[in-house]
């Protein structure tokens, strides 16, 4: 068994708002082992972004950690000092944020920013610049040396995203968190980035926590998948199990909705009717039941626990419980 790098253990996070506490994450548990790529899928508002900002402790001031731990190499990050967190961020754990248009400083050249983030290194400025150029080349920016002196606005959105990826990988982190890094890229670049990530992950043996709602990318890149819905983990397991043998109706519907599955032109594409429940006013029972076409009486009364259904495959649905006890 490979060593565990990151453990999320029973994590519950609320946002304090005027309407009351918004229960953004509820009892989240999963782990990421060394050198493993774990994908997190789920629709907007499922808590993916709260989860990663909790790991990095880059949360909004109204965030309240109610329960649970985030352990990185055995250390509970929720108890770590700000100083300890600063040492971890951008060095042991680095991140590629969702929005490439806003991750760069608009008044500094890209080269300056890429040199600045190497502040922990004792290399000379010329060496840092050379390393920056090498990383830019590695993510597919043409004429990397010349472009170091350009400013973020002189790059396209896709290029800025790639620069962010280059910057996150410069410190050779143990854990790379990638928050929808390929959403703004076209298909060929997306594939290049995925392949590059996989190569680097093998080279550096770094673990990747890959957040995406693009199922094709998750299927292609990840070893394991965690499926989230409305602030809770509804299913997790090996990527093949999740895609070929999904045990939660939400996972099943999500996969059906992907137009990549439908090879001939469809007049009407499948959707999941209904809305995500209000996190400030959660209904009792299963959170997915209002949108679930297989909901039973029991689903309205009791919250289904995340149960082990096979080798490393967990799902939170009473349908499986019926099968197990029958």
């Amino acid at each position, binding site marked *: 068994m490979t060593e565990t790098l990151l453990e999320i253990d029973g994590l519950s996070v609320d946002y304090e708002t005027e309407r009351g506490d918004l229960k953004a994450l509820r009892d989240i548990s999963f782990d990421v082992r060394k050198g493993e790529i774990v994908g997190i899928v789920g629709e907007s508002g499922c808590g993916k972004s709260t989860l990663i900002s909790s790991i990095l402790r880059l949360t909004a001031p109204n965030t309240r950690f109610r329960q649970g731990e985030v352990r990185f190499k055995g250390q509970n990050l929720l108890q770590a000092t700000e100083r300890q967190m600063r040492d971890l961020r951008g060095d042991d754990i680095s991140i590629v944020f969702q929005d490439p248009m806003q991750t760069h400083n608009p008044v500094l050249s890209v080269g300056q920013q890429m040199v600045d983030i190497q502040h922990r290194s004792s290399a000379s400025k010329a060496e840092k610049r050379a390393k920056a150029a090498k990383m830019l080349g590695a993510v597919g920016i043409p004429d990397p040396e010349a472009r170091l002196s350009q400013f973020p606005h002189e790059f396209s959105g896709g290029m800025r995203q790639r620069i962010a990826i280059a910057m996150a990988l410069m410190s050779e982190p143990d854990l790379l968190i990638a928050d929808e890094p390929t959403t703004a890229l*076209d*298909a*060929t670049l997306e594939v290049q980035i995925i392949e590059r990530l996989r190569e680097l992950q093998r080279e550096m043996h770094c673990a990747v926590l890959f957040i995406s709602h693009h199922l094709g990318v998750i299927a292609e890149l990840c070893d394991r998948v965690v499926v989230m819905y409305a602030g809770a983990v509804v299913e997790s397991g090996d990527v093949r199990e999740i*895609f070929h043998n999904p045990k939660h109706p939400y996972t099943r519907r999500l996969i059906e909705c*992907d137009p990549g599955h439908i090879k001939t032109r469809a007049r009407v594409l499948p*959707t999941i009717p209904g809305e995500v429940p209000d996190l400030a006013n959660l209904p009792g029972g299963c959170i997915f039941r209002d949108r679930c076409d297989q909901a039973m009486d029991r689903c309205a009364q009791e919250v289904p626990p995340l149960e082990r259904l096979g080798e490393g495959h967990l799902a939170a649905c009473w349908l499986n419980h019926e099968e197990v006890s029958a």
Partner: protein
Amino acid sequence: MSLLSVSDLQTSYGAVNVLAGVSFDVAPGETYALVGESGSGKTTVIRAIAGLAPAQAGSVTFDGQEIRGLPERSFRPLRKNIAMMFQDPVGSLSPRLTIGSLITEPYRIQGMKDRDLQAEAKRLLEMVNLPAHFANRYPYQLSGGQARRVGVARALALEPKLILADEPTAGLDVSVQGELLNLLNDLRERLGLAMVIITHNLSVVRHVADRMGIMYLGRLVEEGTTEDIFDSPRHPYTRCLLSANPEPDPDARLERIALKGEPPSLLNRPTGCEFRERCPFAQDVCSQTPKWEVSDGHGLRCLAPLS
């Protein structure tokens, strides 16, 4: 007859030749998809059609009227018929206006004073399946999917004949993406809309587009019906692009054809076929410049096409 006809459209920013002659036609009610890498000029094409980007040469005719290079004052009345859906759903909504005033702004701009704006707002929100009370909300109170629908509502306000949609589903969840595409399909049938859609999601193209054009370095390299392109791509670039589409199946055996090298600089366009340095199938003949040739409605710019 074509509703929109783009012919040899050229755009340069200084020495950077972004569009090097783009031509295509869109029939009434037809959906045409433009695909290609970032920087291939897709957005510039539709912005130039809408009069939002310069075009130094070529022609754009809409309903038989030449509209390239029209001054803003003459272009404005045309915007009743040509609507734009911008790439960034939240960024394209003014943060200071309510959703109601945003979606009825087209009536004010067009000086349609006889309209009951409140009633129109209600009708438009209904059309895109948003509750009527959203009219009083501000953009920051919307999710990405809702902001998209507001963008659709605004684009449809004046019942245009043509919609230019720049990445209308980027950043949306798959189920919301499905809803938006179903909505567009439905409106297109009901209102007979024609659409030019830019997307890098090839799975989306397959479901919405009647025909598609593949762009590389500011030129079309291949064009045909969506089915034809997916079934038998003839340009090596198209083949690479289609093979790069990630499948939602971990066991999918992808025969991926890797592109070599980096996209060339627009300041220093390659000679001969501009794709040849990156083309896995390049031959000696490719040092000559390929011409655009059309047979059976399938356009191609390649001297060594795949069979």
